[in-house]
């Protein structure tokens, strides 16, 4: 035994605990890890099913990394032409790119390879889906408010990165579907004014499809984009630690505390176990449900395409928006081509995404509220925000439905034109309808909460009074239940007053208008005096 500062183990320690303390000491002397364990080991996290959505995203990303690493051991990102010689009979002797052939080899010649392809693809779909749901949870509960606005933007970047990861991965096998996907991207890039033609030329290393694109996308897919995802995930989680997790309103929960369970041992078990559950569910789907059977599509060929072509679900909104443009939106001005049939969808989608990204700042500006918010809103208690969210989701959903316009037409035996025209109308009408329904529903629920808080629940017991009058007995709620109903923020519309120069600047006028829009219809939470 060497001489160290280690205190000698006491006599009554058992062998294993002596080993544990020696190991812990060894590590701490070299890493100062004790500080981290003390700081984070008993950190408290609140409990709610909706907090799991972000975890699903994180864990499916880990599954993507694991399965993707396996796939890179076999995939070859080359567009050189070869004749397939593997065991799958219908493709024998077919000329294809090395990328396609190696994907077929992963599917048919590597044991477990097809399973890992399924795992990778399903996990990718789940990754984007869970990010989307997580964002909706954050939005509708107001978790993006100060101090979390920047973390919302980081999460938004992750959402975009996830879609980019998905698209680059979808394009790698170089089959008919992925090639047609790239063809569409090529068409969209070419529509960009001034630089589009050259951007496409540089991107594809010459003319479409060229022989470079798979290698380039592969670099993006397995290096640049994952590195960025990991970086932003690290930032995202660091901010969760710095801010501490938000919690739903409830008795005992305040803006200055977090009520829940400690990391060690409860969350180590629950979150650690949940990783395996997410992985297990993906594995279960991957075992039984195939996805992207490229051997049915064949290698990329610019000539064929099958009816019912669909992108992966998360690209659907973009594809749908392209379909919803009426005929003839292209102009020739000053001797150049302006492809509005591509530019308008790009502007609409980018505009939509920008509004999503900056929404926290808009709302903060409207309310002028500079306080920290760690207690979540129940969606009903922010009726206008909830209605805006409902309108946004509906707008996205209509674009998304657009990508299935042909499938809807064939399945329900409708006219293609009828489906498109209906969706075009819905793109404008449906968000307005959804907005109104959501807002009215929120206000009605708030009224119901208010009435319950003030008068209690309807007990269903009808009593006849001595005077012959019938009344229903209301059962009062407990203090704990009442607190959940009444503890929400109440904002009133901004009062418009002239400044010292006696003027009302435009910005202020705009803010007052927005404030009226947000808070004109409001249900005030009951207080003691008004009880």
């Amino acid at each position, binding site marked *: 035994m060497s001489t160290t500062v280690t205190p000698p183990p006491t006599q009554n320690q058992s062998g294993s605990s002596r080993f544990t303390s020696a190991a812990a000491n060894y590590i701490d002397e070299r890493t100062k890890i004790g500080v981290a364990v003390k700081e984070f080991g008993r950190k408290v996290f609140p409990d709610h099913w909706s907090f799991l959505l972000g975890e699903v995203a994180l864990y499916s990303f880990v599954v993507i990394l694991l399965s993707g690493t396996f796939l890179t051991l076999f995939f070859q990102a080359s567009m050189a032409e070869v004749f397939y010689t593997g065991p799958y009979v219908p493709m024998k002797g077919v000329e294809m790119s090395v990328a396609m052939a190696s994907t077929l080899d992963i599917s048919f010649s590597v044991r477990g390879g097809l399973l890992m392809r399924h795992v990778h693809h399903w996990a990718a779909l789940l990754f984007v889906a869970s990010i989307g749901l997580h964002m909706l949870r954050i939005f509708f509960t107001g978790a993006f408010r100060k101090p979390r606005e920047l973390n919302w933007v980081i999460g938004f970047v992750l959402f975009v990165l996830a879609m980019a990861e998905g698209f680059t991965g979808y394009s790698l096998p170089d089959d008919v579907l992925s090639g047609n996907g790239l063809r569409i991207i090529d068409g969209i890039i070419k529509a960009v004014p001034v630089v589009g033609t050259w951007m496409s030329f540089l991107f594809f290393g010459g003319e*479409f499809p060229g022989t470079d694109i798979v290698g380039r996308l592969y670099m993006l897919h397995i290096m640049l984009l994952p590195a960025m995802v990991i970086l932003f995930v690290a930032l995202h989680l660091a901010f969760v630690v710095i801010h501490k997790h938000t919690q739903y309103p409830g*008795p005992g929960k305040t803006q200055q505390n977090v009520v829940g369970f400690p990391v060690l041992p409860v969350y180590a078990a629950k979150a650690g176990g949940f990783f395996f559950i997410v992985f297990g569910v993906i594995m279960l789907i991957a*075992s039984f449900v195939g996805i992207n059977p490229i051997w049915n599509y064949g290698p990329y060929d610019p000539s064929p*395409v099958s009816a019912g072509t669909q992108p992966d679900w998360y690209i659907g909104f973009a594809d749908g928006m392209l379909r919803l443009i009426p005929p003839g939106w292209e102009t020739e001005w000053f001797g150049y081509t302006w492809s509005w049939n591509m530019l308008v969808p790009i502007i609409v989608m980018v505009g939509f995404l920008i509004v999503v990204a900056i929404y926290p700042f808009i709302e903060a500006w409207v309310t*002028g509220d500079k306080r920290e918010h760690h207690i979540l809103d129940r969606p009903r208690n922010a009726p206008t925000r909830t209605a805006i969210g409902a309108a946004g989701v509906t707008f996205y959903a209509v674009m998304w439905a657009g990508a299935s316009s042909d499938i809807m037409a064939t399945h329900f035996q409708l006219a293609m034109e009828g489906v498109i025209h209906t969706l075009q109308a819905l793109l404008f009408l449906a968000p307005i309808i959804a907005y109104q329904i959501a807002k009215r529903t929120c206000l009605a629920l708030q009224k119901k909460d208010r009435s319950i808080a003030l008068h209690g629940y309807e007990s269903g017991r009808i009593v006849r009074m001595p005077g012959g009058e019938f009344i229903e007995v209301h059962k009062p709620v407990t203090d704990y239940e009442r607190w959940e109903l009444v503890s929400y923020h109440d904002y009133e519309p901004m009062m418009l007053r002239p400044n010292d120069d006696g003027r009302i600047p435009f910005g202020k006028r705009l803010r007052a208008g927005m404030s009226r829009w947000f808070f004109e219809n409001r249900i005030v*939470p009951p207080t003691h005096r008004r009880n």
Partner: protein
Amino acid sequence: MAEAAKYNGSEGAVVPAEGHGAVAPAAGTAVIATDAVQNPGLPPHRKRVTDLDPKVEKRAERTVYTLFYVSIAGSLGAVLAYMFFPIESGDLWDIRLHTMFVGVGMTLSLLAVGIGAVHWGKAIMADHESIDERHPVPSDSATRAEAVEVFTLANEESGFSRRSLVRNSLIGALIAFPLPGITLLRGLAPQDQDPVTLLKHTMWEEGIRLARDTGGYGVGGAIRAADVTIGSVFHVVPENLSQATNLLDEKAKAVVLLMRLEPEKLKERDERKGWSYDGIVAYSKVCTHVGCPVALYEQHTHHLLCPCHQSQFDVTDEAKVIFGPAKRPLPQLPITVDDEGYLVAQSDFQEPVGPSFWERLK
């Protein structure tokens, strides 16, 4: 006290308290009720059935370790399935079985350990609520003052503000230094080619025969005018396609659809009358929207449909757009027949094929 008063949430989710000394962040248009309902505090802890009944707790413990054993069995099962379900026959059924059994083994291994751990956490581990205090996010004023001091010192010691020439030239250098890197990216595409020229030309030229597209890199036999019956449709490539150096690049531009209609149904402008042959017309197969192959032909309406975004083109009327997001008609390939009766191109397309691009009219 001052820090806590600043946030005042203990008195409810509403409002900073005013007049507590510390500077409270502005509440904006929030309504601050002075008589808000008070937070009643944490409700009494409710014990779980595993806390009350040792038998149930014992059972939960059994469930957890049984699940962990099941997980081990699943892992071993997956290894066994890997060994005993070979796929080397190339038969799809064998691959399906292999995928399924290895997958089921791994599923069992993952789900059992996951559910076991979560059950352990929920049913057995202590479940009394813990409370962490939350501190305001900003650093305290002393720390801030020190941070400001750091920057002030750094500025003084370097003279960053004072030596403006040094500073500005540095900014200039930092702006200039990425330029060579960006320039290098020009190499992404070949130096000696111009995309606009390339996009305007296909392999079609005078006398090139129209051959069947047999899929992929293949070129089928040339097509005689007599082979094209009324109502039929041919997927066509140039007969010399296989000589192309970048075959798929050329094919992506040169694919053509060939159809024969009753000649009286064709509406043709005078200057295009000579482009068809006896009711046979040839149109570019590349959609003028984003370039998908316009592969679906509806015989009785003479409409071509693009399966990607549902643009529809009327073959009888010079492939004009009748529905969908495309703007321009499909470019027509002028054709005729040669001495042996084979269909040949009269020339290249008279305009660029495929999706629009900025310099298309140049």
